């Protein structure tokens, strides 16, 4: 029975419904009741299936959804086994999150990259578990989930936790603590008293109605939601301005330093010929043995830029990588292990991945692929190390560009808040 607590699971109408389990229609009108979307594939005999949430296993007009209300069948004896210390700013945010929990509201944590969001969540998660609440932490990105899982399990070593994502082998079981990709929320129904949505701005959550529906559907009617972001979308920012969403700011990184500012340089058509300014910069990296990332707008730019750099600096070892690269993990690992000094990359390394002590160059920062928020995220790759909390972020553009200026302004605003809290350059 526990398998149905707070869940909504698909079963063919022809199969018997287990005793006491509640069965409800898979479609009302044309709308899929699992994902709230209306995108159909046709089946013979006037049947149809939902294409929108197909990746989680098909829901069709031949099916029903099975569920049981969430009973919070937990003992509440959870222990926070994490013994670290929060910085004063993290402590302030941690308290605001406890407030959020007690008021069952929605709250945004606007924290710069490298602020140490995870630790800051521990007190509120612990409080929720002690109240026998069911807690989910979700992110649209599976790599974030995989990175978070061991840290969370370590912090709550006595608590049974299940990790759910598309490629997982672990089978589902009923636990008070759930760590999952946002998609997995489609399998829950009014289950969570506290839902934490990480990287709420990142692909594929932003602007995705289905995932917004999933989160809404998975939380209890009376529940709290905490959104985490380093670069909130315009919609969230407007909500903040209208005070319809309470906000905590965490403008300082864990090492108390400000974000590196985004510098720009105007260059000629760099696809034809790598700019002298750019090559000089690399030469300097070569002299100082500094490790660096070069962001380019398109996959098709990778090889050209990489080979050109090799031609000028055959002595520096590097590589290039993109999302669909079969050797992606290996190349990223080589960069992490310092086997190579640089990587030429597309926006896939814009977030999530951390290489301590690097500098960053962005070619074609004025092109469409680099949004304001993407540029802020890229700048956030730099200065992640306590021993080198700053660094160079340089955007090479052919024209002055509003987006680049907006990104610079966003960083400046965060730094202004950070300076008020005693942040250092």
């Amino acid at each position, binding site marked *: 029975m526990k398998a149905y607590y707070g869940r909504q699971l698909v079963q*063919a109408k*022809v*199969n018997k419904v287990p005793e006491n389990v509640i069965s409800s229609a898979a479609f009302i009108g044309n709308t899929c009741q699992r994902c709230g979307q209306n995108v159909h594939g046709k089946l013979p005999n006037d049947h149809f*299936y939902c294409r929108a949430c197909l990746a989680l296993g*098909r829901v069709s007009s*031949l099916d029903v959804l099975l569920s049981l209300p969430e009973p919070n069948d937990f003992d509440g004896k959870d222990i926070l086994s994490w013994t670290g210390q929060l910085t004063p700013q993290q402590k302030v945010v941690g308290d605001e999150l406890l407030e959020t929990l007690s008021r069952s509201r929605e709250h945004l944590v606007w924290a710069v990259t490298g602020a140490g969001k995870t630790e800051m969540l521990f007190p509120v998660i612990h409080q929720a578990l002690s109240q026998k609440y069911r807690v989910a932490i979700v992110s649209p990105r599976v790599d974030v989930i995989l990175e978070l899982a061991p840290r969370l399990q370590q912090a709550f070593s006595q608590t049974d936790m299940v990790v759910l994502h598309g490629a997982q082998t672990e089978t589902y079981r009923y636990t008070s603590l759930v760590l999952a990709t946002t998609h997995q929320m489609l399998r829950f129904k009014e289950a969570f008293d506290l839902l934490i949505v990480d990287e709420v701005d990142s692909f594929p959550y932003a602007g995705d109605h289905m995932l917004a529906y999933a989160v809404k559907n998975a939380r209890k009617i009376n529940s709290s939601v905490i959104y985490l972001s380093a670069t909130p979308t315009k919609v969230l920012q407007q909500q903040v301005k209208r005070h319809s969403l309470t906000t905590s700011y965490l403008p300082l990184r864990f090492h108390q330093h400000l974000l590196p500012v985004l510098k720009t340089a105007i260059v000629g058509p760099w696809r034809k010929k790598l700019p002298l300014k750019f090559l000089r910069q690399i030469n300097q990296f070569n002299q100082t043995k500094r490790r660096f990332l070069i962001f380019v707008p398109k996959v098709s730019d990778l090889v050209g830029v990489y080979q050109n750099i090799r031609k000028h600096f055959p002595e520096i070892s590097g590589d290039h990588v993109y999302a669909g690269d079969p050797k992606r993990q290996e190349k990223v690992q080589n960069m992490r292990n310092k086997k190579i000094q640089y990587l030429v990359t597309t926006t896939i390394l814009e977030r999530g991945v951390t290489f301590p002590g690097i500098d960053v160059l962005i070619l074609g920062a004025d092109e469409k692929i680099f949004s304001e928020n993407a540029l802020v995220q890229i700048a956030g790759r730099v200065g992640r190390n306590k021993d080198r909390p700053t660094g160079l972020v340089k955007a090479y553009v052919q024209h002055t560009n509003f987006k680049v200026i907006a990104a610079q302004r966003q960083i400046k605003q965060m730094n202004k808040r950070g300076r008020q809290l005693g942040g250092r350059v």
Partner: protein
Amino acid sequence: MNCQLCQTNSNHRLSLLQTFNVIKNQKKQLCQTCELTFTLITVGCLGCGRQQKTNQLCHDCYRWQQTGKKLLNHTALYQYNDAMRQFMQQYKFNGDYDLRVIFNRVLNQQINTLNADIIVPIPVSEHTMKTRGFNQTIGLIEGMAYEHLLKVSAGQKSHQSQFNRKIRMMRKQPFSMMKQISLEGKEILLVDDVYTTGNTLYHAAELLYECGAQNVRSISLSR
């Protein structure tokens, strides 16, 4: 166009001949990357169509012959490699019926070259129709005229996957005729999605021969 499998959008350029309508611009279903993951069978065993160096009867087909069966002269289009396994997983088991269009044209073209009198798809059970909602083989040959001559006998699940090979070989006739008809003098072509052991197709052929069929051959998307 968006690739039916990986959803990537590739703007394939029209060749000059296509632009001037010298050759017809056929709608592509797969991007080049996905298309390349499937492997056509170039030379196949005369009996079952499996990829081989020569078209000589393979060991399995030799055994079928020993049991006194008339060989099916099976034709299969693609090797059952990882890509095909994944396609079947998505199409058949995850039930993404839209994917039937991917191989529809090539399969129908191949069927047409075989000049059969009657085309008979392998049926699925009633239970499968109530859960999966479609017959995967009929989906693959959409647009082709076929006859519904066979049905899965009551109490039979048409799912093979759960039995191992030995059990499958020994299973008794899973099919029966929809109605008693005479197939006197007819050339029949059986169609299935995947040829695995041959058991399904040989059982189906046996019934059709009992109804007087002159010859029964078979085809599948994959082997």
